[in-house]
């Protein structure tokens, strides 16, 4: 099977080169729109790289976020930039500045090459065989309540990480809402084809989100992937001109956004009160508790991502 390994090596080599080339072109071209399209293609290749590295959970997250949220976010930010009158092209450095700093100009490149060499050396000097923590995870998997090791790490062994991560999402949303004076983009009502597409896709997306949430206990999937898919459904609805009815924009929206972190904190407190440590679930209830947290987290991640895409706080949206 020598040809087989050769083929795989060529595939990996091309993928690696493609990633580097896309990143370079995306960061070097003057037109911002081109840069964004190249970045979207970069995300696609990243998903292929995750698959080659046997990280299907990561690939699912990359696919949902990269295809569903990032591209739409960047394109509509660029559109917003154009409407405020800022340049879509990068201004070239004036000649004078270039000459003035002639010798200094090379310095960043040299420092960067040094950094690259040091980092490369550091990576290559790591032991080539190291199973990391996989043995420890495998040992304790039976008591975690789920059989997918990644979900076990995310919601049981390192649950505090995920809890704080939910808080970070919330902070980002608060930040975006506090900048609400930036005018958000208006979307006209959708034409029939887009309307049909949305009507077909959104229920399917919700179904797939539920599937990913459920399957995450024993196979690749979980709250983050499901939440990202829900977020993408929200992005699609917003693009089609749909807005949350005003009676739901007040506390019901905030309640859903908070439900993820709140469920986490409540269960963390309960585990402390019943005598355990933070987020140390009793083994017999671990599966149920994880599912409860994951469901709440999925809803809250989905709604938060959609709200981040919408940009302005819902009250502000109404006033316009």
């Amino acid at each position, binding site marked *: 099977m020598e040809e087989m390994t050769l083929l795989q090596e060529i595939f990996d080599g091309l993928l690696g080169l493609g990633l580097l080339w896309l990143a370079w072109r995306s960061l070097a071209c003057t037109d911002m729109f081109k840069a964004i399209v190249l970045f979207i293609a970069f995300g696609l290749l990243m998903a292929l790289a995750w698959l080659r590295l046997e990280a299907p959970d990561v690939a699912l997250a990359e696919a949902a976020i990269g295809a569903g949220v990032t591209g739409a976010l960047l394109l509509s930010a660029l559109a917003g930039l154009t409407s405020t009158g800022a340049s879509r092209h990068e201004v070239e450095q004036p000649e004078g500045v270039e000459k003035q700093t002639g010798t200094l100009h090379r310095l960043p490149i040299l420092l960067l090459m040094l950094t690259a060499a040091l980092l490369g050396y550091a990576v290559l000097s790591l032991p080539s065989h190291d199973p990391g923590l996989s043995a420890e995870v495998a040992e304790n998997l039976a008591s975690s309540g789920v059989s997918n090791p990644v979900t076990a790490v995310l919601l049981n062994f390192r649950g505090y990480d995920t809890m704080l991560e939910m808080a970070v999402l919330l902070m980002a949303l608060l930040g975006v809402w506090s900048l609400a004076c930036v005018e958000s983009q208006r979307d006209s009502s959708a*034409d029939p*084809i*887009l309307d049909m*597409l949305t009507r077909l*896709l959104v229920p*399917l997306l919700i179904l797939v989100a539920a599937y990913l949430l459920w399957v995450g206990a024993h196979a690749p999937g979980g709250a983050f992937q499901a939440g990202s898919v829900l977020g993408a459904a929200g992005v699609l609805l917003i693009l089609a001109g749909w807005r949350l009815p005003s009676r739901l924009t007040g506390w019901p929206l905030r309640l859903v956004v908070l439900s993820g972190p709140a469920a986490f904190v409540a269960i963390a407190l309960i585990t402390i009160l019943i005598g355990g440590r933070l987020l140390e679930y009793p083994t017999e209830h671990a599966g149920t508790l994880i599912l409860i947290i994951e469901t709440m987290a999925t809803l809250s991640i989905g709604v938060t991502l959609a709200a981040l895409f919408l940009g302005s706080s819902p009250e502000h949206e109404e006033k316009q």
Partner: protein
Amino acid sequence: MGLIDYLSTILLIAGGIFFLAGTVGLLRFPDVYTRLHALTKADNVGLGLVVAGLVVQAESWAAAGKLVLIWLLVLLAGASISYLIGSGALQRGIRLWKK
């Protein structure tokens, strides 16, 4: 190699040829409207043939169904996008290519 394997190989290679045609179309066609063909026809048939090649190897009906569903979803996305982009381009006055 059994009969199934031969069938699957033929379908997969045919799919590859359609993908190649799509790429050539993307590179060689003169304007947006003709390039939409590459998106909606060549590549979707290519994916259909690849999916067909994998369906005959599928381990269960559910797996085969999922593969076909993936193809249908790509068809749906391709068709709607080509409409959105085509009509948008017409509205914005991007000229049609004439010989």
